[in-house]
């Protein structure tokens, strides 16, 4: 009897406790602004995307320390799309419909962005996409805080042409959409600049390619006819290590044939034996080695948040930093988190970037950024050897492709169009 009595008493108090907790939870939930974080935490992309999830958590925590947004605390809703492209769309739907997030920060690969795009457009919600991409897209609901080709690839080629004096070009890439589109743009750009077709070599390799002997021998041969040769590499992920190793072993140094990469950053370098890479180049909008007070503060905050002095910062992290602060500012300006209000408020918003200047959201939903060229050092950091004199505004539609040079994007009234054709004055719907 006694025992049963005690048991029931305990269970009653437990129930009461849970109920009160639940009520507190609901009460709190109603009073927060939810922010969706849509990055893969498992599968092949986890290597890169987990860091961005942590970055978002840090930014949200810092904003809450400053008193939240519109007087309410922010609440991160983290989901794991597991590097599975269709799952990205499902998780995006879950974030918007069930969690009612005010905005979502996420996606890495172009294919994952393409997968979630229809969901954000259908449900009219906002996505901030932080990674450099191939361009040729401008959605009403997406803000592209990573680099468009004219903010990374084109200035990189300019640097090689003007400062390094490159005359022959190898465009080497992994065989998928980003390298193929970027190389198409670069090829058109180079020909525009008077480079002969014979002086351009284009080469694609499968994902994770590990046997670079023939290709490096070919590059060496291509670069041995007296003209300065440079390699523009859109080689992705794992395939980079054997590529650089082979270059070093076959005696191709960065001074003879420099390789400029668009997918190799601090985070990727932390898993490399960097000795063979020293002196090769990368083009980004931010390097951890940038000297500015905002960057020092950001790095300190990051180390404190993640609990390790060894962790690096990289370009997509900066993109989230900029994107998040822009969103915060736009919400404050609009006084609400309503999608349409924030969308029109955010155009023209300027926030500090980490390289010591300001970035502005343009009417085509891309941002202005400086472009930096860095040389890889033996400690896995980059030495900045060149930067654009001013900021470069992201161009959604490349001016160097015949199909897209007539298109402009302007999401302000009265145009309100992501792909307005200036030659015949039509807006052909949203994308493609």
């Amino acid at each position, binding site marked *: 009897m006694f025992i049963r009595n005690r048991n029931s008493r305990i269970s009653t108090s437990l129930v009461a406790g849970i109920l009160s907790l639940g009520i507190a939870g609901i009460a709190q939930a109603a009073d927060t602004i939810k922010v969706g974080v849509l990055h893969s935490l498992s599968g*092949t992309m*986890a*290597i890169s995307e*987990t860091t961005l999830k942590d970055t978002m958590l840090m930014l949200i925590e810092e904003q809450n320390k400053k008193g939240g947004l519109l007087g309410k605390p922010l609440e991160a809703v983290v989901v794991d799309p597991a590097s599975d492209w269709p799952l990205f769309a499902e998780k995006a739907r879950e974030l918007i419909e069930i969690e009612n997030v005010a905005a979502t920060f996420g996606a890495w690969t172009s294919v994952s962005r393409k997968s979630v795009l229809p969901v954000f457009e259908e449900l009219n919600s906002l996505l901030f996409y932080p990674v450099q991409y191939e361009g040729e897209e401008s959605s009403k609901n997406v803000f592209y805080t990573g680099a468009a080709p004219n903010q990374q690839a084109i200035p990189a080629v300019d640097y090689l042409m003007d*400062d*390094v004096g490159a005359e022959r070009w190898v465009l080497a890439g992994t*065989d998928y959409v980003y390298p193929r589109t970027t190389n198409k743009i670069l090829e058109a750009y180079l020909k525009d600049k008077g480079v002969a077709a014979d002086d351009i070599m284009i*080469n*694609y*390799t*499968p994902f*994770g*390619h*590990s*046997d670079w*002997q*023939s*290709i490096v*021998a*070919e590059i060496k041969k291509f670069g*041995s*006819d*007296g003209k300065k040769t440079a390699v523009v590499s859109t080689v992705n992920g*794992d395939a980079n*290590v*054997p590529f650089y*190793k*082979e270059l*070093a*072993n*076959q*005696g191709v140094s*960065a*001074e003879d044939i*420099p390789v400029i990469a668009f997918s190799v950053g601090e985070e990727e370098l*932390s*898993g*490399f*034996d*960097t*000795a*063979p890479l020293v*002196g090769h180049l990368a083009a980004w909008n931010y390097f951890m080695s940038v*000297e500015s007070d905002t960057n*020092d503060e950001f790095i300190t905050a990051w180390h404190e948040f993640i609990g390790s*002095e060894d962790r690096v910062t990289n370009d997509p992290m900066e993109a989230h930093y900029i994107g998040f602060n822009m969103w915060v500012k736009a919400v404050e300006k609009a006084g609400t988190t309503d999608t349409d209000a924030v969308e029109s408020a955010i155009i023209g918003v300027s926030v500090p970037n980490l390289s010591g200047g300001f970035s502005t959201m343009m009417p085509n939903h891309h941002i202005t950024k400086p472009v930096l060229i860095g*040389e890889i*050092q033996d*400690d896995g950091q980059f*030495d*900045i*050897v*060149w930067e654009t004199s001013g900021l470069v505004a992201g161009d959604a539609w490349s001016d160097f492709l015949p199909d897209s040079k007539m298109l402009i994007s302007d999401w302000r009234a009265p145009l309100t169009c992501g792909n307005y054709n200036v030659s015949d004055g039509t807006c052909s719907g949203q994308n493609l």
Partner: protein
Amino acid sequence: MAGLNTLGRAFLCFCFLITLPMFTQPVFAQDSQLTNLLQDLASDLTSKKRPVQLRAIDTIAKSDNQYRERWLTFLLQGELYVNKSDKSIVHAVKSGKGFAISNPDNGEALGEVKKRALSKVRINNAIRVKLKGILGTMRLTDPDPLNRLVALEDLTGKADSVVVDTIRGFIPDETDNRVKGAMQLLIGVHDLKQGSNEQQRAALEYAEGKLDIELINELRTLSINSEDENIRSRALTLVEIAENKKRWYARVETLFFGLSLGSVLVVAAIGLAITFGVMGVINMAHGELIMLGAYTTYFVQQLLPSAINYSLLIAIPAAFLVSGVVGIIIERGVIRHLYGRPLETLLATFGISLMLQQTVRTFVSSQNVAVINPVWMSGSLEINPALSLTLNRLIILAFCLVVFMVLLLVLNRSSFGLQMRAVAQNRQMARAMGIRSSRVDALTFGLGSGIAGIAGVALSQLGNVGPNLGQNYIIDSFMVVVFGGVGNLWGTLVAGMSLGIANKVVEPWAGAVMAKILILVFIIMFIQRKPKGLFPQLGRAAGD
């Protein structure tokens, strides 16, 4: 907040201003006279404008300062930094978490500082080339022939007539043959480009039979631009001879590339040739056993950071043991219950492969780890200027053949090999002869797994080491074993090598993606015609 920050910073600066002279003065005072040039140029050297930097470097090079070579060497190596606190230029090298700084003139230690207290004097590739030229000129008379050689190589094609004439004067006194050769090459390239007709003719004579790229490029220009018709036609002939030779060497190179790709395939597949070929176990975890071997290499390097050059020699037996023991555990724990049920074996080992991958992700890292190449596996063996074989590939090719021969000996000459073959051919009969067949099974599987581990050591030198490493090799391994004929080691060797060569012959004109597809299509068609592969087992051993 902001106000406080500025105040705080101002206060700190003030403190620095007061304290700094106390620390720095005595150090710099003794040779302030000599330090001046470098320190005076500090703002120019750190300028973001390359022409300004170049001017400063020129000033140093042209000065008669006794430290100029030292400074420029530090600059080239990226070891000159600006000490942010007093804007002086210091020499700094990494030490632990921070940097050890010293006086750039005499190397006197100035203590240790944090990385953020320094800002690097940054140079780019163009300036690096320029510096190498300047240092090259300074080092032409260096007592160490190796330094002279490097200096000459850096100068080839870039040296002006004055320097070249100086080098001409050095030739008779030069004792080192390699250095002499480099001098002649440098002079030849220069003379072809801008020598008098006389010199050009001499250089043409010298260039005969040479394959150096710089020479051939100059010859090519000469064959078009020279005013003298004799020189033009002679240059053209020489270019053609060189091109022909190069074409021949290119074929040798392709063959080497093919053999080397083949050796990678064979190394990866040879363990599978035992577990799948001899025992008939479809072992989907084979790739993960390779991965374990590669991780063993990584851990050996972590444990012995001072002996990177020997780490591979230790890693080979270690990897054999690690993968072999894991293999035996897998066999004893799972596979032995599934003999005669190939589909269940396939599923079970696939499950094991996923578990092994996740274990590594959880306990090591989901990121790739950096395995360092020892010095003797970096670079290449130069046979002539048109043909050089990369050392890591060459060593792996040799390693592959050694492993193959040892395995062949074990199988054919040892009593364990005899037992292994007996069990594989007729288990009942072998048991009747007193062989403990289950023990032989375990050891055979352990041997195959151990070999996979050794393969991991070799493969860690070529590509990434990460949890997914095994997946990249499992398909290729099965392909090689099936193509070669199940149960035949020689088949595996021949199949691996021929697939490697075929791939490399096809690749230059079809591209890497297409080459892979074509090879797969070829294998599918081949297996259709000859389901038992290149070297089918005959007789009772075939099992049918």
